[in-house]
């Protein structure tokens, strides 16, 4: 086609330059900052080489945050994907009101995170919250549970809240994949007498797998980055029980006034995520080729 390459570049240039200025350049600055000893924004710093990296890598707080981030990402991926897949399968059926359901399932994702936080803080609270009385009525617990009182329950509750916010979004992306599976395949399977489970196992699952793969990568990146829900609900506590890497970065920079150290943790976190993204997209490409 006789289209000029210059025009193509002109079309992508604004987006590229914008991202370079807003994400690329700050990333370079973060790397620079990690090699200095700046404590607060705007203060001058001296070049200290890899000192910060040595200190961070020797700091148990970094490793425990990294471990928590891993737990956080995996737990969210499992819960989100399970809920999302169930919703997507339901919404792919025909039933009265399915259009309304398809639109409004997304409700949890369109309200501000801060609102999500308040909703669940209230529902889980020991005074006036709805969850505790329900659990007591159902005979599951005897007295109100302090969901945010112990590290383990706090983390589990946070995972639930975050997944609650994101599963409908993921579900709609899955639904997009589901609607592309031709109806004829299911018709043929039904004529051959395949059970619902066999239809799922032999048609839905293999055809949906690539979409699930892409969404698993996106979901992982999304949930790794989650900061506001954790910060507003537990501030990383209790006893550091929910201090994931983004929380640690924020704390180090804005509470501990160790800007360079925070930048160092950021750079290390970025390297981990990039490594994951590259490996994951390679794996997806390979499964595409099969």
């Amino acid at each position, binding site marked *: *086609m*006789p*289209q000029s*390459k210059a*025009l193509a570049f002109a*079309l*992508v240039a604004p*987006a*590229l330059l*914008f*991202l370079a200025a*807003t*994400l*690329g*350049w*700050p*990333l370079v*600055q*973060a790397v620079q900052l990690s090699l200095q000893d700046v404590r607060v*924004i*705007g203060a001058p710093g001296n070049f200290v080489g890899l000192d910060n990296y040595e200190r961070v890598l020797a700091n148990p707080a970094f490793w425990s945050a990294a471990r928590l981030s891993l737990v956080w990402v995996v737990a969210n991926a499992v819960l989100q994907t399970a809920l999302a897949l*169930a*919703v997507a399968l339901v919404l792919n*059926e025909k*039933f009265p009101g399915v259009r309304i*359901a398809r*639109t*409004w399932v*997304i*409700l949890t994702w*369109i309200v501000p*995170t*801060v*609102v999500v936080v*308040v*909703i669940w803080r*209230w*529902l889980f609270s020991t*005074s*006036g919250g*709805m969850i505790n*009385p329900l659990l007591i009525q159902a005979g599951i617990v005897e007295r109100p549970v302090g969901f945010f009182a112990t590290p383990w329950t706090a983390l589990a509750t946070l995972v639930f809240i975050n997944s609650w916010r994101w599963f409908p979004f993921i579900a709609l992306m899955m*639904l*997009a994949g589901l609607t*592309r599976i031709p109806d004829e395949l299911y018709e043929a399977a039904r004529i051959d007498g395949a059970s619902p489970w066999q239809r799922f196992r032999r048609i839905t699952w293999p055809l949906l797998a690539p*979409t699930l793969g*892409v*969404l698993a990568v*996106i979901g992982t990146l999304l949930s*790794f*980055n989650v*900061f506001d829900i954790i910060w*507003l609900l537990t501030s990383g506590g209790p006893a550091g029980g929910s201090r994931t890497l983004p929380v640690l*970065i*924020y704390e180090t920079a804005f509470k501990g006034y160790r800007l360079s150290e925070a*930048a160092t943790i*950021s750079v290390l976190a*970025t390297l981990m*995520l*990039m490594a994951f993204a590259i490996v994951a997209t390679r794996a997806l490409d390979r499964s595409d080729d099969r």
Partner: protein
Amino acid sequence: MNRSLGLNAALVACIAFFVTLVGLPFWWVVSGSIKIPQEIIARTPTMFPQSFTLQHYQKLFDASAYPVYLVNSLIVAASSTVLTLLLAIPAAYAFFRLVFPARGVLYRTILLAYAFPSIVVLIPLFGLFAKVGLVDRLPALIIVNVAFALPFSIWMLRSFLAGVPKEIEEAAVMDGAPTLTILRRIMIPLIAPGIASVGIYAFVTAWTEYVFASVLILSDAKRTLPVGFSGIIGQYQIDWGLLLAGATVAIVPVVAIFALIGRGFVSGLTEGAVK
């Protein structure tokens, strides 16, 4: 479609479960916001309000600049949406319909932008904005939100553009239409559902953003809804009635917008599939 009785029962059970999971919390919040304080913290919670009061709303609008936050949020979200679309549509068109050198590399670079923790750029961006005098100004938030929404938006447009038959474009080229005219007159109308989806995605991203808005904005009059709302949380002893009223007011605008165009978002997503 004919389903067996067992499958139908399972479907109904699933629907009931998810309606409860998504709907009930919202019902509790909205209905709670009109209960009197004693009823809100009652030992046995009520499913339907037994009392009615607007005192929490009164307090909300008296004690905080809520309408100001609301307007700020709308300005930021709407501007971010427009800017995201202006940047994403031409870029996506070039990436997925035109051929040029280094296309693959550039596209992958954009996707990688999606893969690093946003908190990483918070510190350097603050410094950058301070230098150019953008701290405590709404444009700073617009820039940040566009940066976060853009990579995913370009990626989202891919499947929509892929769905437009090559012949339509070729016919236009034969007729001597310039590339930009093709983009404006043919592509954009054809991928309108996709544009709606991306627009909503960008709007929601900006509408819900909290961290950057809390760090980059210093004065109360420039606060967005999430930050203003979190201010109410800290400002008082936990006053659940006030918080529930605030939550309700924060939910209503997006719900109203979504009621108007939400269907486009979902059908847009499901018609242009993920790949």
